[in-house]
């Protein structure tokens, strides 16, 4: 791929994450979270989208993102306050931004009318004068590419000796210092303590002071307290220390320049007034021991890499740091209280260094006109306390590579199982070294398999995050007020499963809003709050992931559902069904309760399709409902589509695998419990309940004559719909985790078979599709079974 194109592809991937971050931030804001961190995060996301769009010349996207960003910036600086209305506009804007990103990605267009309307809505949030000032109405939305602010780059030489003061371009600093913005000129306090060497080199303190006086009015005081009595005084020693106060409209570099020739031979500190001057460890001393001829990089590299040592050396300057170069704030006194909160220098570490730097940035925020009202204690606390929460480093890897790895590990698992089996078949003692080694290998293999699967595991967040928008749109369309509550977004599941969760969840949510919830009027009449609640949750249960969609709506209208099912011939008129069974009728093909096929749920997709798509993932779906209180759909899915816990059984000389998740129990049938219906279809009575008895060998066409029930084992299984059946097999071999190999990809679909696997002995075993087997048997004898069940 063209490198540029591949970077662009990366950008769009990032956009997905950015949009997700943006939306979760906005949702928090909708709930009233006006923490500056939240607003900042949203701003940053939009800003990054815009920045990338700029790099790739995506004009439409830039144009919209710019307006959006500007509004967020107004919030960030406290000029625009968060209200319900503002949050709603921002949320809609986020949807439009997502559309723009999607359009830019696919090269398609966007709804121009919607964009224009949205831009107008965003602009309306900002005071008209302010909007003009920001240039929001200009067509040329993107800021000029490069503006000269009188900025002069600071020149640096690559091989500059480390011990030299940087060759700071004075002009640049002058330009910055003479800028109209800095409000005050705090006074510099220079402490200058010459060493004996300075005098030995024929330098003169007075000359230095005179040099300093050229920078402006200075106030010099001499500390002669160190001068010993005359009889102890050594003519070659240095005892004097000067403190010089200098008006602050000079840069620190200017001041240090005056000491250019003596700085190696004196103790020097240059700080703003009001700060603790620590003359005992002037920062220039730091470079004293570095090799003057080494380049800056080499010198730095030569410095001990031990963080503590490094930081111990830099402590005094960093302690003085936050304010010495901090922006001249309008009222110096104001920054003073903050300093008392500065972390204990003795405990400074990287986190501390960062905290200090963050504080400087914070000061920056504070200095911005009408400063955000709460430049907060919260951030402060976070900066000093929570800094070590360094994010785990991550890398991006092509899914293909992970898949290859997972496949290879799958083969490894099989190979390992085969090896074990061969070894034991060869008659080696279980306690032999080889056997013990193999056991270790097995454990290791399992561990590798788990770890590899964990690579592909992702939180369901990526799917959940798309749902708030869906809920907003559906709610708008059907005129209902809906609050979406999400739980367990961090529940992890294999990526292959995640990708296929979206459709069923989407459909269940639509269904919940469209059918489950009442209109605001109905809700009010029923004594409920006008706003309906839909809860979307994910949780791990029994090695599976369970997704629940729950509404507090009207619940299933059972008489009506039953009536429809009878009318459509789905059940017999006299069928006796439990409430649960009635509720589950909505999953039957061809069932739709919508009076009018609405735009939302009625896209020709019924719950039966949802159910089938979940079953295709090896999942189950069920519903519980309480009239007037609401309904809850639960779907449970395997955590991965790559491996399966299975019961290995044999039937008609074939080895088969039944998914453990379907199995309820196994038993040896007694001949008197088995009854033949219509001379062919068998049912078995298990604790007074009749369930179909399916001879697996016959059902799959391995043989024609059924096995005598008493000579086999009946495995009671339950299908997704809750239908039960007993599978008659010859024997149960054991429980095993198997690697799923798609039958469709390698051969073709076979009814009653879900997939295949390779067993330890190298043979292929078919994995049973329990649902298909149960459904087939039930379809054959629906009435009989019901009558008996009743």
């Amino acid at each position, binding site marked *: 791929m063209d490198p540029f194109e591949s970077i662009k592809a990366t950008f769009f991937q990032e956009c997905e994450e950015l949009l997700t971050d943006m939306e979760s931030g906005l949702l928090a804001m909708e709930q009233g979270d006006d923490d500056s961190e939240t607003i900042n995060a949203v701003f940053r996301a939009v800003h990054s989208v815009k920045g990338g769009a700029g790099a790739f010349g995506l004009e439409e996207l830039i144009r919209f993102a710019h307006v959006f960003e500007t509004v967020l910036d107004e919030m960030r600086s406290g000029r625009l306050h968060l209200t319900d209305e503002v949050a709603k506009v921002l949320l809609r804007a986020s949807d439009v931004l997502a559309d723009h990103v999607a359009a830019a990605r696919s090269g398609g267009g966007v709804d121009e009318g919607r964009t224009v309307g949205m831009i107008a809505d965003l602009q309306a949030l900002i005071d008209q004068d302010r909007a003009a000032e920001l240039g929001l109405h200009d067509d040329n939305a993107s800021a000029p590419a490069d503006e000269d602010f009188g900025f002069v780059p600071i020149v*640096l030489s*690559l091989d500059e000796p480390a011990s030299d003061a940087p060759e700071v371009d004075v002009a640049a600093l002058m330009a910055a210092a003479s800028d109209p913005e800095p409000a005050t000129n705090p006074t510099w306090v220079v402490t200058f303590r010459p060493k004996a060497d300075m005098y030995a080199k024929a330098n003169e303190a007075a000359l230095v002071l005179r040099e300093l006086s050229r920078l402006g009015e200075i106030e010099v005081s001499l500390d002669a307290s160190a001068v010993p009595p005359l009889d102890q005084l050594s003519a070659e020693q240095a005892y004097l220390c000067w403190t010089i106060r200098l008006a602050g409209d000079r840069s620190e570099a200017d001041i240090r320049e005056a000491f250019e020739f003596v700085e190696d031979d004196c103790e020097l500190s240059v700080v703003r007034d009001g700060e603790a001057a620590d003359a005992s460890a002037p920062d220039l001393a730091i470079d004293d021991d570095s090799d003057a001829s080494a380049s800056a*990089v080499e010198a730095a590299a030569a410095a001990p890499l031990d963080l503590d040592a490094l930081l111990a050396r830099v402590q005094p300057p960093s302690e003085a740091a936050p304010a010495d170069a901090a922006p001249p704030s309008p009222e110096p006194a104001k920054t003073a209280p903050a300093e008392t909160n500065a972390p204990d220098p003795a405990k400074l570490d990287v986190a501390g260094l*960062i905290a200090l730097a963050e504080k400087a940035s914070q000061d920056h925020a504070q200095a911005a006109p009408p400063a955000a009202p709460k430049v907060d204690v919260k951030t402060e606390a976070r900066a000093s306390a929570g800094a070590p929460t360094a994010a785990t480093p991550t890398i991006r890897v092509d899914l293909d590579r992970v898949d290859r790895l997972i496949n290879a590990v799958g083969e490894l698992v099989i190979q390992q199982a085969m090896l074990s089996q061969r070894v034991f078949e060869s008659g080696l003692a279980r306690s032999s070294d080889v056997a013990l080694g193999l056991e270790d290998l097995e454990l290791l293999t399992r561990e590798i398999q788990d770890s590899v699967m964990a690579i592909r595991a992702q939180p369901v967040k990526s799917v959940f995050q798309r749902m708030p928008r869906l809920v907003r749109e559906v709610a708008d369309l059907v005129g209902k007020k809906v609050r979406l509550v999400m739980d367990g977004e961090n529940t992890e599941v294999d990526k292959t499963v995640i990708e296929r969760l979206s459709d069923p969840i989407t459909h269940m949510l639509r269904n919940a809003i469209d059918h489950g919830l009442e209109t605001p009027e109905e809700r009010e009449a029923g004594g409920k709050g006008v706003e309906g609640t839909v809860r979307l949750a994910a949780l791990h249960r029994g090695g599976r992931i369970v997704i629940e969609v729950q509404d507090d709506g009207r619940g299933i209208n059972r008489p009506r559902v039953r009536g429809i099912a009878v009318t459509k011939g789905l059940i017999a008129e006299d069928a006796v069904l439990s409430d649960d069974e009635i509720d589950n009728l909505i999953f039957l093909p061809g069932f739709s309760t919508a009076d009018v096929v609405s735009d939302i749920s009625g896209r020709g997709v019924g719950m039966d399709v949802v159910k089938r798509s979940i079953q295709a993932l090896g999942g189950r779906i069920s519903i519980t409902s309480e009239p007037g209180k609401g309904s809850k759909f639960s779907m449970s899915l395997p955590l991965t589509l790559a491996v399966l816990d299975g019961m290995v059984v044999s039937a008609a000389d074939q080895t088969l695998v039944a998914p453990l998740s379907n199995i309820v129990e196994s038993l040896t049938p007694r001949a008197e419990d088995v009854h033949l219906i219509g001379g062919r279809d068998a049912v078995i009575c298990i604790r007074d309940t009749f369930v179909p008895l399916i001879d697996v060998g016959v059902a799959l066409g391995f043989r024609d004559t059924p096995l005598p029930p008493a000579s086999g084992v009946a495995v009671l299984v339950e299908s997704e719909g809750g239908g039960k059946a007993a599978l008659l097999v010859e024997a149960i071999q054991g429980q095993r985790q198997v690697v799923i190999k798609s039958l469709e990809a390698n051969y073709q679909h076979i009814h009653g078979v879900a997939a295949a696997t390779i067993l330890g002995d190298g043979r292929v075993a078919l994995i049973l599709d329990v649902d298909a087997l149960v459904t087939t048997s039930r379809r054959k004898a629906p009435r009989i079974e019901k009558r008996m069940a009743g």
Partner: protein
Amino acid sequence: MPAPGAIKTLIADDQQSMRSLIRTSLNALGITQTREAADGEDALRALLAQPANLVITDFNMPKLDGLGLLRAIRAHGPISKTAVIMLTGRADRELVQRAVQFGVNNYLVKPFTTQILKEKIEAVFGPLE
């Protein structure tokens, strides 16, 4: 005249795509010794572990923004003389001024071309060979 190949560069940006773009441009200029960091804190750690001649940093980053990174670099003796070029999303006068006060060497407005990047680097180190 510094040899581009000798300029050890650290790219700090929270977006992988931006880092790749900058790296591609730098490589085109012959600056091949590049490392990347995903935020200011990450960058600071990388610098402490192994110094660089040049840091090209985005302004907007989580955890520690570009200004904070600049601050930290300047406050820290062994790495305080690292050249820093700040990337900004828009030509923001106030921002540039703050960066100047913290001792930024140069700034660069997105989107930029390889040529502009070259000029910005040359303004700091002198013409590249």
